[in-house]
């Protein structure tokens, strides 16, 4: 796999709501190696997008604490000019909503041209255009020279996502962050985009962070997986371990709550309660404990930490040891009691 190109230590990203700050990303540490695809999976509001934005330095510095080492250099605490040299060149980002991620009043060609120009203004306009057309071709756009002059709204969702990808890989970055790159797309388009990402991974040898809520996408794409819940990473493992031997109650519940096309389930597992909103996050103890009330409270740690249970397999909190799924019979009697 190679050396880590990204190492994050104790990252904390907070947002201000009214008069208080709330941490959307709390105590996150992880590494990404060259040639490796790390998937970050979680439900909406778990902080996965805030994490991606923090790595790219897209949140105001005042909101971000901790260290982010990119190729050994702490990019959480460098000047904006230095950061701009890295962004778009050595670090690329693919956004979720391709329609809003592209400037509606600018042709596709100019938008990709811009990222090349910013990092290499010595290249002649003509050469840049050639390069842009090559890039469009590489991401599977059928008529690159024509698309060069089109506006974003003239393309289909799938085509636009390809443009966004072309932009992200234009300068062959060493780290690529893809924030839900296929969520807005139809399944058949999704599979095409995922295949494209796989191909690019082999081509540019970058480290990739793939952010998604879709466990199927994770199973298909990832080398390693980090599961996030309520701003924290609750489990990290390589993809096979995670799917075959998940330990954290949240990971296990999540895997059980998805309709699985391989097995017939009469009923899906339901995670009780709701995903807490940023202001209502439990700040102490195991953040998942309110959703598994049947597990004895003594099973949780006071200050849950990530434990390395097997080499490379980390789990937060000790509650996984005592976790079990409640018996089914408990489920169906609710509206009798009131």
């Amino acid at each position, binding site marked *: 796999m190679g050396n880590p190109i990204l190492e994050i230590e104790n990252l904390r990203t907070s947002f201000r709501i009214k008069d208080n700050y709330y941490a959307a990303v709390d105590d996150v540490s992880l590494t990404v190696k060259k040639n490796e695809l790390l998937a970050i999976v979680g439900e909406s509001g778990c902080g996965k997008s805030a994490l991606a934005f923090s790595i790219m330095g897209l949140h105001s510095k005042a909101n971000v604490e901790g260290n982010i080492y990119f190729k050994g250099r702490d990019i959480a605490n460098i000047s904006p000019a230095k950061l701009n040299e890295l962004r778009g060149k050595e670090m690329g980002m693919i956004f979720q909503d391709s329609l809003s991620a592209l400037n509606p009043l600018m042709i596709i060609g100019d938008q990709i041209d811009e990222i090349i120009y910013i990092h290499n203004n010595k290249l002649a306009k003509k050469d840049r255009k050639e390069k842009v057309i090559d890039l469009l071709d590489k991401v599977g756009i059928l008529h690159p020279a024509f698309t060069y002059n089109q506006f974003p709204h003239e393309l289909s969702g799938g085509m636009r996502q390809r443009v966004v990808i072309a932009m992200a890989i234009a300068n062959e970055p060493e780290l690529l962050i893809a924030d839900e790159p296929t969520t807005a797309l139809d*399944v058949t388009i999704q*599979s095409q985009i995922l295949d494209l990402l796989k191909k690019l991974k082999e081509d540019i040898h970058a480290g990739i962070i793939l952010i998604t809520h879709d466990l199927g996408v994770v199973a*298909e794409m990832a080398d390693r997986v980090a599961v996030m819940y309520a701003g924290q990473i609750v489990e990290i493992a390589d993809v*096979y371990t995670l799917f075959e031997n998940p330990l954290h109650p949240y990971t296990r519940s999540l895997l059980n709550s998805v309709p699985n*096309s391989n097995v017939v389930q009469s009923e899906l597992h339901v995670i009780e309660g*709701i995903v807490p909103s940023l202001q209502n996050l439990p700040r102490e103890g195991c953040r998942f404990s309110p959703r598994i009330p049947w597990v004895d409270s003594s099973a949780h740690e006071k200050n849950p930490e990530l434990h390395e249970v097997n080499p490379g397999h980390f789990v937060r909190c000790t509650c996984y040891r005592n976790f079990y799924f409640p018996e089914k019979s408990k489920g169906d009697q609710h*509206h009798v009691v009131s």
Partner: protein
Amino acid sequence: MSFLEVKNLKVHFPITGGLLGRTIDHVKAVDGVSFSIEKGKTYGLVGESGSGKTTTGRAIIGLNKITSGNVLFDGQDITNLRRSKMSARRDIQMIFQDPYSTLNPKKRVFDIVAEPLRNYENLSKREEKKRVQELLELVGLSPESIHKYPHEFSGGQRQRIGIARAIALKPKLIIADEPVSALDVSVQAQVLNFMQKIQKELGLTYLFISHDLGIIKHMCDRIGIMYKGRYVEEGTPEDIFTNPQHIYSRRLVAAIPDIDPRKREQQLQFRRTVKEEYEQSYNDYFDDKGLAYQLQPVSDTHLVALPGRG
């Protein structure tokens, strides 16, 4: 005899243009769809965006005007029946996709759930309140929350309020248009399980519209796949998932990511084969406008849109 029967349903939307807003062309959102649903079963309608699945559901309940074709419900023709004569229609209700826009933000939960009751049943204030509270309990919300506004609830809870409203009149058929697409995975499971439970308890029939094949497979007894306003294949989950016949269905099935990382290579291979096959035999499966042919039976339960004979 089938409970809901849709015969050669067409919904065409005019495209207007020019100075006087003349009709230049039509979008054939639904273009000759026939299927039937049996009582107490769940029928799944799958397709990608623009396939016409949602329009089909909306046409059945009367939200889109039917251009031609018939909808028979419990033996009665309800095609384009005006809403003012909806007493025949109270048996069909709908669950919508977006939990945020489906509830009027200015109304309290009580008024939202009571709306259908006020339209069809003359209840006293007290009876009405009792009914609403019962319904809320049925969907697992505390009956005391009737004076709250929708924005005080989470997505899953709102979707349950929508369901409470839909079952208030004790309907027989529920059209569920992507009921869980906007929800998180864990909340999806809550709503899906809940839908199955009330189906048993109230003897409901579902028309379940979704783009998610995994959910469709989990929920449905029979599945229809739509593409550009037409059916390409119809059958039992078994037929569709283990023996898809139409090239489009096969492509759709191949596109679902497998949840087992060990099958990754196999899946990729499968997808490549299907893709090649799709490109090669596209013209065999679609007419010169890129539309599907008429459905032909290939077994007792399985129909596929194949060229020829029709």
